[in-house]
């Protein structure tokens, strides 16, 4: 990997040059929370943010996503080929996108997702964990790939890791903004990473987790939490790896239809309902447990379907904690 340094005084010029790649979306403070929206000025950014409500998946798998338009009884594909920059993405969210890639890019690839992935320029940023983060225990606290540039905070600027050809091109074309990395910078980088590793308050024991959960299918813990759960589906909407969608045809005027897909949630009673009224997950217990099984699915080549971003905990109105549920299931079984 190539490492360069971006001095603090060049940061806003660097931000301006990225505009050549398309619209820039970055984390902006919105009351007490953060959200990824379009940013024109570097001052609008909140680079020390904890987490946004919706993860960057909203740019690739959109909450409402137009697929086709029906015109003269023929479907026309809706295309959005615009390039854009996602500025300031945390490592866990980069890993979240990699998990989505596994689903959406495997054969046959989803053309909408694929084109958006190709059109996106991703700038990662280092972060400090808060009380909800448990990415370290899942190995998603550091991204080795899945970004174009990754910025690590230094006392006098940023250490930049270059992760792709597109990233190389940006650095190459704006050489005057960057400097070589010094020994001192590397020391600061190391210090920051060490401080960060110690800052985690929450951790998940993933030792044998997939098997333990499989054995604990009838655990009372599922029942206890399913009774507490409100079934609102918040955790699935804010999850960077949840991807269930529903498709519907909407008439927008007398002779025009839009086929769109929108987020669906396995917490909704209709999720497992089939024609004729049979429901494969009729109770909240079934649905609650299913989400935990889906998130803790272990793929030997890629790990778990959870990146430990802490969104499901922070935005759960019933204050159910993901790690706690899994730990209790483990305790009851062992």
């Amino acid at each position: 990997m190539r490492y360069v340094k971006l001095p603090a005084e060049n940061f806003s010029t660097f931000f301006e040059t990225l505009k050549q790649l398309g619209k820039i979306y970055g984390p902006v403070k919105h009351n007490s929370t953060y959200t990824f929206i379009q940013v024109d000025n570097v001052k609008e950014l909140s680079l020390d943010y904890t987490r946004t409500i919706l993860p960057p998946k909203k740019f690739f798998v959109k909450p409402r996503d137009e697929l086709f338009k029906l015109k003269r009884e023929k479907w026309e594909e809706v295309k959005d080929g615009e390039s854009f920059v996602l500025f300031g993405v945390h490592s866990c969210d980069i890993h979240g996108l990699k998990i989505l890639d596994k689903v959406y890019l495997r054969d046959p690839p989803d053309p909408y997702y694929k084109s958006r992935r190709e059109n996106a320029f991703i700038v990662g940023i280092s972060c400090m964990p808060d009380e909800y983060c448990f990415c370290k225990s899942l190995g998603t606290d550091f991204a080795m790939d899945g970004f174009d540039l990754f910025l690590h905070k230094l006392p006098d600027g940023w250490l930049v890791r270059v992760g792709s050809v597109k990233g190389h091109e940006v650095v190459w074309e704006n050489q005057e903004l960057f400097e070589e990395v010094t020994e001192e910078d590397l020391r600061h980088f190391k210090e920051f990473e060490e401080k960060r590793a110690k800052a985690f308050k929450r951790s998940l024991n993933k030792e044998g987790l997939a098997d333990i959960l499989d054995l604990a299918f009838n655990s009372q813990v599922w029942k206890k939490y399913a009774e507490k759960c409100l079934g609102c589906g918040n955790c699935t909407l804010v999850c960077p790896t949840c991807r269930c969608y529903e498709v519907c045809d909407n008439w927008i005027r007398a002779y025009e239809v839009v086929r769109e897909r929108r987020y669906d949630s396995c917490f909704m009673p209709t999720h497992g309902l089939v024609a004729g009224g049979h429901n494969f997950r009729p109770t909240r217990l079934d649905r609650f447990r299913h989400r935990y099984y889906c998130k803790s699915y272990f793929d030997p080549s890629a790990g778990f379907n959870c990146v430990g971003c802490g969104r499901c905990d922070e935005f759960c109105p019933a204050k159910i904690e993901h790690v706690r549920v899994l730990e209790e299931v483990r305790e009851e079984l062992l």
Partner: protein
Amino acid sequence: MNPYQSYDAKIIEIRELTSREKLFTLRFTDREVEESFTFKPGQFVVVDLRGYGEFPISLCSPPTRKPIQLCIRRTGRLTRFIHKFSEGESIGIRGPYGNGFPLEKMEGANLILVAGGLGMAPLRSVLWYAIDTGKFEKIYLFYGTKSYEDILFRDEIIYLLKHGEKLNCHVKLAYEVETPSCIYLEKGFSEKVCKGVVTDLFRGEEFDVNNSYALICGPPVMYKFVIRELLDRGLSPGRIYMTLERRMKCGIGKCGHCVVGTSVSMKYICKDGPVFTYWDALSTRGLI
């Protein structure tokens, strides 16, 4: 090519099978698509009612015969709508999806088809494929239905009850509700038609378990009983195939509605199935 884009298909014939089910015969408008469209028994397509939505449905004609046919029960919003279509109108079709039955592997063996209600639709594809190709030892069809009026493909079933043995095909029928027509049928084929459930049809039947495959399709409640019956007779779980239903939306393993299983094994019914063996059911929770 966008995998969500459907091909235009014309309804060339509609046949009323029962008061709830209609058989749609379809031909793709594009000649190249019509000629190149191939599938395996057990696979399904997604029907696109442009402006109203999509729904998955299994192919019920055999791949050895063209054009393709779909047996659709009027049960929800979209199926109610397609039942109002008339011959000559167009719909969209995309697919085929899913794995289908591995019939090449079963060549030379006995096929035991066990159908319950609408489960007859995908198994009809296997039935006629097996009869048309003649590559199988003997074909058994055990079909459980609610009443005489609910027998799908009644003319074909009665034909096979009469002449099946000539085609190497042994058909038996069980019905639950007694009506005069059933009694008439039972009198005509006393050995083959009885009042009861589908598992009752196994009584008195002998088959070589080392050279047979069972293919099951029916309502969720049926699987447990049929599988127990087959296992009791000594059929290996690897020889028991079943085709399952879930709320499949995309057909290509993206939308997440048909995911089953737990943290160690998760499966997409649309992509990894809808045909599974009993081994899969033993290792994947929630499959049946």
